[in-house]
């Protein structure tokens, strides 16, 4: 069962082909029923086949087994066959179909069938005189070859579809013909050599054979089996069959002629090239399968021929022949396959193209039908539009402005009387149709539309070719493109001639009608006149009656007042005015109804009572006001006049009514206006005085009371001029009044006049007054509005003064608005800047500013707007002649009444002079300084001289002094015996004198040193000063037996140490010196803290100093005692004072004669 199934499965493609061929053949024949039968047969068989397949489907393994077995068998037998032609080595042959079979099997059935191949190869080789190992090796090699080849083809050459494209065909050829076969050859030959069955020397030859054989097998047989395994339906027509047969015949012939000696007796012509056109034929005319089959067939023939010594490939050895043959076959196969692949491709492409083309055609047809439908619809639309236009007598037009192409609808052509076909339209052509008189306006309208892009209408006459004139009403719209340019215009044109004509005729009719109306009115007037004449004719007797009747009637009917007659409170007769007053349309509405119906409910009782009284003949008010009630329910005020009369014994009441609502309202208005007037008068700020024609005061408002000081009651009726006109002007006033009354005109009437008025207290003051005359019946009155302008006058005066000041000022005073424009310009400005007021007012102030200072203006503006006032701002401005001028600006803001800054007022003072003066001063100063420096230098030089002078003086003075002293002493000591008392005395005096001089020189030196040196101020501790002094005066103090006590600690002072030592030393020695004889001198030092200052006291118990000398003692050389009494140079205290001065301190003394002295020196406290 399985082999059968397998066989069926394998042969299915062949079967199919047969079916197809048969089917085609039958199709083209006439045997329809045959075909049918055959078709049903085919289908039945197919289903059965299918069922069989399905039945065997679950047996996947069995299928696999079957396939493997078949493959194995094929491999084995073909292998054996091949090995029969193994001439080089028992196991290497040039004809080796198994490679192809193996490859095909792996490609079609899959890699899983490799065991079959392995087994097949093994069996093939084991049955040759070869070792198991070698066989195994070869088998492995062959299996590997197959696997590798299949793998490569699947990977790089589309697998089973390798023969559909030339590209993949070549790849297949290389991969299977070269690569995989090389593997097999290598492994196989190596195995054999290794085993020893083949010699290594002939490795190459064996390898080559093996390789070629495998390659040929792969290239020839593998495609055959692969292509046959697939279903390829080739369209078999009758012609094709014929061709195929012919091809086969030719194939046979060519094969025989090339490879056997069938045709020609000589056998070995190199006619192998004849195979090529054969291949080409197969490739171009049939499919790949057919090509490969023919290759196989040809191979077979060639092989047989070559084996038998025929054909161009015969060589000396079979082996060689076979080699060359195989090579040729392989190449031929590949070429043929490639060609076939190309053709197949091309066919496919054509097929694809044809399909696409069909598809396209189908779509085009679809689209065309659609389009046709749309077209039809459009056409229908168009026709509708044309019809509509025809009916409305409206045509449409379109004008492509750029291209000047005009499109008109048919209707428009018709309206213009033109043939649509014959006229090519442009805008100009259109204009030609327009009536010459209207052309210009049409053109203008169009142009305007082009500009404005607004829709437009235009009425114009046209002239048709036949000469008739029609009136057209056109409308148009402009179409703009993206840039806003008008590109198209569309619109309509309508023939409105009929309409216009109708209009015209209507006008005529109207005119005619009016004429007729006038005629008729004239006729009526004439008739009236005639009628009137008739009436006059018929006066006669009835005239009197009719007269009175008509009079009454007239009165009754035409009276503006409502007249009503009533009896017993019921209306009897009313006139039209009555009806009108109460809002009734006809007398019938009122007559017979109660009177009270016309009376407002609020008045019912009153009126009822009166009616009743009258009804009984009593008196009742005859004139009164009441409230009436209209027919619509509204009430109004009535004035009533009542009278009663008797007629035929009945009492009738006649009422005449007047609607006084209006009057009431007027009265109210009058009251209101009076009140208003009163209020105005009362509250007016100005005095309002009214005067009658005699000059007497008629009105006097509170403001007048305030201004003039008269109360109203005082002045009414009094003559005004007595009251308020200053005596000087009274006569003029009276005359003016008289003139005004006479002539009706006055010089002061109707305008503002300034005058002097007088208050109650006689004070005259300026006023502004406006007098108007109030016309009335009778003598006029005059009203005057008087304003006290004292303040204003004062302000004006002030302003004038200011203006005068401004004008007369020598400084430039001008003002500018916020925008920088000059508003005012005084004479000073004209002088300073050179511009006249006329020239510069209105110009910007920047004219005056030099270019490099323009930013000043904006900063000034800023400060101004913030309300700042700028004073004495020195800068540079420009004159008219362009020269610069130094100015000092004072700028203040100008504010409006709301306080906002609206401008600036500037005062510019020419400061050129001042600047020059300043410059001079500066120069003088520099000079002065220079001179001061020189003088100082001079002084310093002098000082220096003085110093050296002093120095040398003291120095050189001293030397003789020393000599004097020393020698005198020597004399005294050494020559005592030789000297008598006088002599000794003299010597002593010399010594003493020399001593004094020494002291004087010392002190002088000290004094002068104090004046010269620059003292460096440092904090000095007084304690150390005192100890220095003690040391210095040690001898002196000891000699005098003086006691110096110091109250320590003493503070620190700011000063110069040596000077301080001098000061304190002098004071202390003085204190010790000036004591009464026999008194032990006691000098005490203590310090007093006086805030930032320190006072050092030097107190002694000396003789004291009378107060009148307290100042003198500090003078240089001023002494209070002779030198005999108390020795001294007279410089000591001067030194103290000078020293204290230099140290910035103060010195003083407290003393009284006989009570000791307290000297003090005060210095700034120092900080150590």
């Amino acid at each position, binding site marked *: 069962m399985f082999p059968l199934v397998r066989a069926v499965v394998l042969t299915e493609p062949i079967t199919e082909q047969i079916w197809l061929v048969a089917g085609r053949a039958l199709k083209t024949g006439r045997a329809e029923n045959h075909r049918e039968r055959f078709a049903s047969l085919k289908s039945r068989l197919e289903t059965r086949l299918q069922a069989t397949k399905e039945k065997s489907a679950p047996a996947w393994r069995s299928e696999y087994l079957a396939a493997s077995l078949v493959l194995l068998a094929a491999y084995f037998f073909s292998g054996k066959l091949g090995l029969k032609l193994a001439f080089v080595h028992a196991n290497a042959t040039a004809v080796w179909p198994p490679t192809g079979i193996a490859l095909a099997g792996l490609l079609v059935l899959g890699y899983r069938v490799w065991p079959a191949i392995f087994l097949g190869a093994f069996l093939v080789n084991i049955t040759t005189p070869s070792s198991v190992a070698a066989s195994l090796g070869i088998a492995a090699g062959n299996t590997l070859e197959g696997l590798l080849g299949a793998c490569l083809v699947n990977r790089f050459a589309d697998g089973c579809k390798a023969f559909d494209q030339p590209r993949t065909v070549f790849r297949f050829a290389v991969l299977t013909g070269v690569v995989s076969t090389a593997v097999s050859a290598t492994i196989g030959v190596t195995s054999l050599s290794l085993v020893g069955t083949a010699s290594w020397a002939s490795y190459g030859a064996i390898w080559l054979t093996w390789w070629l054989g495998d390659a040929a097998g792969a290239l020839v047989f593998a495609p055959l089996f692969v292509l046959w395994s697939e279903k390829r339906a080739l369209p078999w027509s009758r012609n094709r069959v014929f061709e195929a047969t012919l091809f086969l015949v030719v194939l046979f012939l060519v094969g025989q002629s090339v490879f056997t000696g069938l045709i020609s007796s000589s056998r070995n012509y190199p006619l192998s090239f004849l195979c090529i056109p054969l291949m080409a034929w197969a490739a171009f005319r049939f499919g790949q399968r057919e090509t490969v089959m023919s290759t196989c067939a040809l191979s077979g023939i060639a092989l047989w021929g070559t084996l038998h010594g025929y054909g161009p490939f015969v060589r000396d050895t079979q082996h060689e022949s076979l080699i060359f043959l195989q090579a040729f076959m392989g190449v031929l196969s590949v070429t043929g396959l490639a060609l076939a692949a190309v053709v197949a491709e091309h066919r496919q492409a054509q097929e694809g193209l044809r399909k696409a083309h069909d598809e396209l055609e189908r779509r085009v047809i679809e689209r065309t039908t659609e389009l046709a439908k749309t077209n039809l619809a459009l056409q229908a639309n168009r026709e509708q539009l044309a019809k509509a236009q025809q009916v409305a007598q409206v045509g449409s037009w379109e004008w492509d402005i750029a291209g000047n192409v005009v499109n008109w609808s048919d209707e428009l052509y018709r309206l213009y009387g033109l043939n649509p076909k014959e006229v090519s339209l442009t805008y100009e052509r259109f204009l030609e149709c327009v009536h010459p008189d209207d052309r210009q306006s049409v053109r203008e309208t169009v142009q305007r539309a082009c500009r404005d892009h607004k829709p437009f209408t235009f009425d114009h006459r046209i002239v048709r070719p036949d000469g008739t004139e029609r009136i057209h009403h056109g409308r148009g719209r402009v179409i703009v493109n993206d840039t806003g340019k008008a590109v198209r215009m569309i619109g309509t044109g309508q023939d409105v001639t009929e309409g216009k004509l109708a209009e015209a005729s209507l006008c005529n009719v109207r005119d005619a009608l009016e004429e007729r109306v006038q005629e008729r009115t004239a006729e009526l007037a004439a008739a009236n006149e005639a009628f009137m004449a008739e009436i006059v004719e018929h006066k006669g007797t009835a005239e009197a009656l009719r007269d009175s009747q008509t009079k009454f009637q007239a009165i009754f009917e035409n009276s503006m007042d409502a007249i009503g007659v009533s009896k017993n409170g019921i209306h009897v007769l009313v006139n039209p005015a009555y009806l009108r007053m109460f809002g009734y349309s006809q007398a019938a509405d009122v007559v017979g109804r109660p009177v009270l119906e016309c009376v407002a409910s609020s008045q019912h009782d009153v009126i009822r009572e009166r009616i009743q009284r009258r009804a009984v003949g009593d008196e009742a008010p005859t004139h009164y006001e009441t409230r009436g009630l209209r027919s619509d329910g509204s009430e109004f005020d009535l004035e009533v006049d009542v009278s009663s009369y008797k007629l035929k014994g009945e009492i009738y009441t006649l009422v005449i009514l007047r609607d006084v609502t209006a009057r009431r309202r007027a009265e109210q208005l009058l009251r209101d206006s009076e009140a208003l007037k009163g209020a105005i008068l009362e509250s007016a700020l100005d005095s309002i005085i009214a005067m009658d024609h005699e000059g007497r005061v008629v009105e006097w408002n509170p403001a007048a009371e305030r201004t003039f000081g008269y109360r109203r009651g005082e002045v009414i009726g009094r003559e005004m001029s007595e009251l308020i006109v200053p005596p000087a002007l009274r006569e003029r006033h009276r005359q003016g009044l008289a003139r005004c009354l006479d002539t009706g005109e006055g010089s002061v009437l109707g305008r503002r006049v300034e005058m002097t008025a007088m208050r109650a207290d006689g004070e005259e003051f300026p006023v502004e007054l406006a007098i108007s005359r109030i016309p009335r019946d009778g003598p006029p009155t005059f009203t005057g509005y008087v304003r006290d302008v004292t303040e204003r006058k004062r302000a004006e005066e002030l302003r004038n003064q200011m203006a005068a000041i401004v004008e007369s000022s020598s400084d430039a005073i001008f003002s500018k608005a916020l925008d920088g424009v000059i508003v005012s310009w005084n004479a000073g400005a004209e002088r300073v800047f050179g511009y006249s007021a006329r020239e510069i007012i209105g110009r910007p102030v920047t004219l005056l500013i030099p270019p490099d200072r323009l930013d000043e203006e904006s900063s000034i503006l800023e400060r101004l707007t913030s309300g700042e006032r700028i004073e004495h701002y020195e800068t540079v401005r420009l004159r008219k002649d362009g020269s610069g001028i130094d100015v000092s600006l004072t700028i203040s803001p100008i504010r409006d009444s709301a306080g906002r800054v609206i401008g600036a007022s500037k005062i510019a003072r020419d400061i050129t002079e001042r600047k020059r003066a300043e410059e001079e001063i500066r120069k003088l100063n520099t000079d002065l300084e220079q001179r001061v420096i020189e003088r100082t230098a001079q002084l310093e030089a002098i000082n220096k001289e003085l110093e050296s002078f002093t*120095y040398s003086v003291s*120095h050189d003075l*001293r*030397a*003789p*002094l*020393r*000599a004097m*002293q*020393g*020698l005198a*002493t*020597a004399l005294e000591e050494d020559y005592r015996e030789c000297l008598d008392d006088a002599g000794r005395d003299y010597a002593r005096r010399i010594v003493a004198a*020399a*001593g004094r001089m*020494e002291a004087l020189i010392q002190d002088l030196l000290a004094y002068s040193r104090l004046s010269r040196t620059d003292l460096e101020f440092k904090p000095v501790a007084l304690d150390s000063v005192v100890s220095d002094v003690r040391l210095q005066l040690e001898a002196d103090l000891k000699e005098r037996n003086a006691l110096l006590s110091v109250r320590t600690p003493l503070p620190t002072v700011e000063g110069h140490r040596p000077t301080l030592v001098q000061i304190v030393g002098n004071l202390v020695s003085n204190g010790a010196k000036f004591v009464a004889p026999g008194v032990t001198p006691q000098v005490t030092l203590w310090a007093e803290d006086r805030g930032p200052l320190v006072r050092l006291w030097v107190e002694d118990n000396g003789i004291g100093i009378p107060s009148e000398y307290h100042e003198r003692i500090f003078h240089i050389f001023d002494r209070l005692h002779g030198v005999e009494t108390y020795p001294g140079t007279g410089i000591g205290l001067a030194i103290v004072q000078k020293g204290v001065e230099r140290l910035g301190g103060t010195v003083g003394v407290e003393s009284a004669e006989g009570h000791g002295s307290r000297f003090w020196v005060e210095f700034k406290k120092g900080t150590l």
Partner: protein
Amino acid sequence: MSNRDILIIDDDPNDTLLLQRAFQRTRLVCSLHFAKDGEEAVAYLSGQGGYADRNQYPLPALVLLDLKMPRKSGLEVLEWIRQQPSLRRLIVVMLTSSNQSSDVNRAYELGANSYLVKPGGFDTLMELVKSLDRYWLVLNEAPEFGSERALRAN
């Protein structure tokens, strides 16, 4: 052997006389030598001319130098002394009437060993002389100077 030679360089004869007297009165054993002005002093110290005899005119242990002298002033002499290799170490005490700080400072700058101001009173002068002797000639360690001395010392 202590050297008690003192060279007094002063132009004022009175001052010189008084000095002499002072030394006498204090009974100090010093031999005094005098130079009237700067030039003489230089001649003396350098052993020129008549001063070549060092027995008669020995180099002094102490030089009392006045400032104000005609021609060569004391400061110049001092400068000269300090420039002489053999005399550099001489003890030079300024004895002058000037107490100006400029003079004092300059003298010290130039290398004076001390600066004394001539006192006014004679007694004070005696005190000064006594002190000088005591301090400079007794207490003070004298330096070696003069080529002869140097030679002799070795």
